[in-house]
């Protein structure tokens, strides 16, 4: 069974968090808090020293997590432990290719089989995915595809062929000098993706508030949202006081669950 195959039809909520942030022990509490709200999806970021596709906030979270030499094995163990209270929430790993490669693909899959429903390898374009995709699908783990506003129709078609789980549409890209969401553009692109694929389309990058979540739901055809940086930002907002962080996280997740 793969939880991603039974996602709700609308208003899907996916929450991203870096494993081991701010410390491994505190990270458990953070994920438990997230899990207690039963979001549709939790994305586990595996920290990487050079997260070039992530913004400064997630980069900082990676740095904090790696401060205590967090290993890939520790992150995977954490995910395994949390999966006991997984219920209907889908578990998705988000990582960079070097992490998987160095750990060993087969060993990696062995560690996440029947625990993790999907994986996003940020720097693995579909031109390079063949070898990995086969092993993943054999073990019923979906390789989640990213689509950006720069991906043209022809490329999207190739990319979206046989897509599983959900499509991650990267919203805030290509808007020079601003991180404002361009709902018109998002709607246009999501519509076009939906013509090519039947799996849900989630919008991610730059979603910061309840208002953003509602607007995406009202003004676009997207099936849900991914929230990441905004969850981590709260930690820095309350000056890294961990107990206060858990409380503000709780409040924020309650808000964005629409």
């Amino acid at each position, binding site marked *: 069974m793969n939880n991603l195959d039974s996602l709700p039809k609308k208003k899907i909520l996916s929450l991203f968090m870096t494993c081991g942030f701010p410390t491994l022990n505190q990270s458990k509490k953070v994920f438990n808090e997230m899990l207690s709200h039963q979001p549709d999806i939790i994305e586990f970021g595996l920290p990487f020293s*050079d997260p070039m596709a992530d913004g400064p906030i997630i980069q900082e979270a990676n740095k904090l997590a790696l401060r205590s030499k967090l290993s890939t094995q520790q992150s995977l163990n954490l995910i395994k432990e949390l999966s006991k209270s997984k219920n209907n929430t889908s578990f998705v790993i988000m990582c960079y290719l*070097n992490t998987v490669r*160095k750990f060993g693909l087969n060993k990696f899959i062995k560690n996440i089989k029947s625990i993790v429903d999907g994986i996003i390898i940020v720097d693995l*374009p579909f031109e390079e995915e063949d070898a990995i995709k086969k092993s993943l699908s054999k073990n019923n783990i979906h390789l989640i*595809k990213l689509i950006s506003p720069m991906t043209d129709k022809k*490329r999207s078609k190739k990319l979206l062929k046989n897509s599983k789980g959900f499509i991650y549409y990267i919203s805030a890209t290509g808007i*020079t000098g601003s991180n404002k969401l361009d709902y018109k553009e998002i709607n246009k692109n999501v519509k076009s993706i939906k013509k090519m694929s039947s799996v849900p389309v989630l919008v991610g990058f730059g979603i910061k508030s309840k208002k953003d979540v509602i607007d995406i739901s009202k003004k676009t055809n997207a099936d849900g949202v991914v929230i990441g940086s905004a969850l981590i930002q709260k930690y820095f907002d309350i000056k890294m006081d961990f107990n206060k962080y858990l409380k503000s996280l709780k409040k924020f997740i309650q808000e964005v669950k629409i």
Partner: protein
Amino acid sequence: MKTYKQPSTVGRFGEFGGMYVSETLMPLLLDLDKSYKKIQKDKKFKKELNDLFKNYVGRPSSLHYAKNLSKFINGPKVYFKRDELNHTGAHKINNCLGQILLAKKMGKTRIIAETGAGQHGVATATVCALFGFPCYIYMGSKDIERQKPNVFRMKLLGAKIIPVESGSKSLKDAMNEALRDWIKNVRDTFYIIGSTAGPHPYPKMVRDFQSVIGKEAREQILKVEKKLPDYLIACVGGGSNAMGLFYPFLNDKKVKIIGVEAAGRGAKTEETAATMTSGTPGILHGSYSYVLQDNDGQIKEAHSISAGLDYPGVGPEHSYLKDIKRVKYFGITDKEALEAFQTCSKLEGIIPALEPSHALAYLIKAFKNKHKNKVVILNLCGRGDKDLFTAAKAIGFDADE
């Protein structure tokens, strides 16, 4: 050996190279690849570039017989390919001119670049001034501190310098930030990468633009020595000056080729930048190549006295040339490089940059009293002006006196 024909159409040098970037960048790289292929056949482009090489850069750079150094080594005849005489003082300008012409052709309106030693930053700022582009240079704050003359140069040329405070605050982190900028500003921005690193087509494109070095050297040496050189030596950080010299000689089996990496405080210590001596294959900045990494694939921080070699990765083509054993790579420590820096200055009246000082140090160390009657070309890819303060400090000379 079969005729050397790398990379493949998808940017593979053997198993190395490729395009490991997020979907936000993929369409751009494919577009860049397409545009680059197009201009390679464009005669007008070639003419324009050659004209700039000749009249703006001052090419061809000379091939100088370093008589005194040769005598000192008591071994081979040493020639310097003097790319330090180029406008802006290093080989970096060759590539920047090629890429800015391409940016113009592609209709881009904003230029970004990363820099370590500042040579690539200065070269980028220079071509941006010449062609009237707004220019943003990402530079680690540690490098800003140790390369002040170049920082001032870039500012004079009208570039905006964005200090990078993340990670080791040097070249690797500057490249991460530049890539992030590109992801955010995909539509109008052209990223001028300064080395043969990064995702395809950069390693190929930068090599091609830099290969003017090797093409000239080949003609020049055939003219004076009536034969090909026995050895080529160049320093390797990301590897652009080395690829520029090596590439036109790769099919000449008899020419032995040596790349010299920065070993920092020693290739076996944690404070090194000798990627191919101490590293293992991995993925950094969109390309599969040798990198300095730990057991979990976390990229380590590099160390070298030379900011231009202070990079934990290396170009995929060098990784390939190492594995097929066409090029041999060796490490030289900070201390050895500093010594060669002084030897070259005193003997030849040429103050080399700390980067080629590594190549010089290897030459002096490995060829002393050996290889007589042989001919060596060493790529003197940059001049030492930018390193005066760093070198003075390391040698113990009070430059403020």
